[in-house]
């Protein structure tokens, strides 16, 4: 593919390309697709996760593929139904914190001066106050439920995004094309939405992915402590009940092992997808790939990053 051809690929096609081209991104996308499928259709395929179907703490058997919980519920059904809620909260919070981060960050970076100073102080303070203890204390005061949980995660999670987006806005603000648009007298809102934000699409996507990883982890952690809705079926409450029924000390590994693995797989898939997308936003990596492909084409091996001259060590 020649350079102009690559340049013309925009929008969805660009992202699709990144997934297809990069092995890591491909792996990540496939893992996520499987979980999306489970989240959407899974609950239709398994029985009621709350139903008492057998003797408590039975190990995995053909009848109950992942065994039963301390209450005698089917672990697999709980896992599958939990996937939907956990992913919904995870992605919902992921989007919300990036949205808030973008509003605060772009405002701070674009207007500068006192507005910047005040907003920067705000998000830096939120960054330095440890998030999980704050989340625990807030959640302990509010009535339990999925909505509360999401709210708490948003309050404690937006600051990092604001900081990164502010830095990016600051650097875009200096560019000539933005200066040119300002001179033409466009409104601030238009400059931000049609000149600045599109320039950081890849950053925003990376932030959503990163924030979703955070949200899923923190959500599972809080629910594990019993700060979610313990009567709901989610990954975190599954672990809460597992700990509560002292699964650990009775050797019932099947009540907690699969859930943790699912959390990790989703996080892993998201991270892999992110590293594939890196290349879209990082021209240095694009050059590097082009250079490597060029070398491999000629039967050589690239040894180091962005070398200026081919080297022989």
């Amino acid at each position: 593919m020649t350079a102009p051809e690559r340049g013309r690929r925009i929008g969805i096609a660009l992202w699709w390309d990144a997934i297809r081209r990069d092995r890591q991104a491909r792996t990540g996308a496939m893992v996520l697709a499987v979980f999306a499928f489970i989240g959407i259709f899974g609950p239709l395929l398994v029985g009621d996760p709350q139903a008492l179907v057998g003797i408590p703490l039975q190990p995995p058997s053909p009848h109950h593929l992942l065994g039963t919980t301390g209450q005698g519920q089917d672990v697999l059904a709980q896992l599958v139904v939990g996937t939907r809620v956990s992913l919904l909260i995870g992605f919902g919070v992921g989007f919300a914190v990036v949205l808030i981060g973008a509003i605060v960050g772009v405002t701070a970076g674009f207007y500068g001066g006192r507005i910047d100073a005040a907003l920067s102080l705000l998000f830096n303070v939120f960054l330095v106050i440890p998030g999980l203890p704050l989340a625990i204390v807030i959640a302990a005061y509010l009535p339990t439920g999925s909505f509360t949980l999401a709210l708490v995660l948003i309050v404690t999670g937006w600051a990092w995004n604001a900081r990164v987006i502010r830095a990016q806005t600051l650097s875009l603000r200096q560019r000539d094309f933005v200066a040119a648009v300002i001179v033409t007298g466009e409104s601030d809102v238009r400059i931000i939405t049609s000149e600045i934000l599109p320039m950081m699409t890849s950053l925003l996507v990376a932030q959503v992915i990163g924030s979703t990883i955070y949200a899923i982890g923190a959500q599972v952690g809080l629910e594990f402590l019993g700060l979610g809705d313990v009567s709901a079926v989610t990954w975190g409450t599954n672990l809460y009940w597992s700990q509560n029924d002292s699964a650990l000390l009775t050797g019932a590994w099947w009540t907690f092992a699969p859930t943790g693995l699912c959390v990790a797989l989703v996080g892993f898939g998201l991270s892999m997808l992110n590293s594939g997308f890196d290349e879209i936003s990082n021209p240095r990596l694009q050059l590097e790939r082009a250079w490597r492909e060029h070398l491999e084409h000629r039967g050589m091996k690239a040894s180091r990053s962005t070398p200026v001259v081919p080297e022989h060590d």
Partner: protein
Amino acid sequence: MRFLLRRLGFYAVAAWVALTLNFFLPRLMPGDPATALFARFRGRLGPEAMQALRETFGLTQAPLWRQYLTYLDHAIHGDFGISVAYFPTPVAQVIGTGLLWTIFLAGSAVLISFAIGTLLGVAAAWWRRGWLDGVLPPALVFLGALPYFWLAMVALYGLGFTLGWFPLGHAYSDDLTPSRSPRFVADVAAHAVLPVGSIVLATLGGWLLSMRNTMITVLGSDYVNLARAKGLHPSRVVLRYAARNALLPSITSFGMALGFVLGGSLLTEVVFSYPGQGYLLVQAVRNQDYPLMQGIFLVITLAVLGANWLVDVVYLWLDPRIRDSAS
């Protein structure tokens, strides 16, 4: 010096925000906060205890600003009120028993993870696209995606329960009294292996990736090429020239990582019944011991702020650019 003072000012603001959040949180509860709070303790606490509680939170009939000032006054003097669950022990005293354990647990986990992860990052960047670089980052990203406490549960189940190599919880054996004897130290170390180890495993990937990525940029820079061209020994080029400079971003994120690890270690403590802040905090939440809960939140926040300031001092010492611009 000005740099350090400015940072100190910032941490003072952060501490004030934490205090203020702490003040308004009880008032977030639906309905009238005072009634809601006290309804839970009715019957469990005598009138004088209720009065103490009321005063700590400033939940009196006085106007809000006066309540706020009363509360600030108490907090500045280290008076976080009286614990409900451990009545009549003051909150500050209850917290004191757990603080050292948490600092020990989270502190050693962060330091070990930082040291190992950074060294691995250097190695992965130097032998780029080698087997180390191919295997370690994805493997550690996967480990990092595991919730800390879940890793702790698996370690406890596998190495503690099934194999019996390590104790199943607590900070030291019941039959020992805290002392400086080698036997007690060894016992504490044995109890710390699983909690510290699981946090280290979960956080290693972040340090590795951050160091690896900065190293890759630094290794491509002119002065490193010059050092190589001069024929310096590779180990000298990597450690003295590249790694030293690539370390700065990792140091910057060190302060923030402290907060995260502290959060994670709270959950780990719960899994191991480790007698630190996390275990206390969760007990406080379960017992609806609000004074203790809020006291723990404040103490953890102040600890993180203090640690961040120490990181600033180290940073100033390491980065001549800031040192010069500051003086």
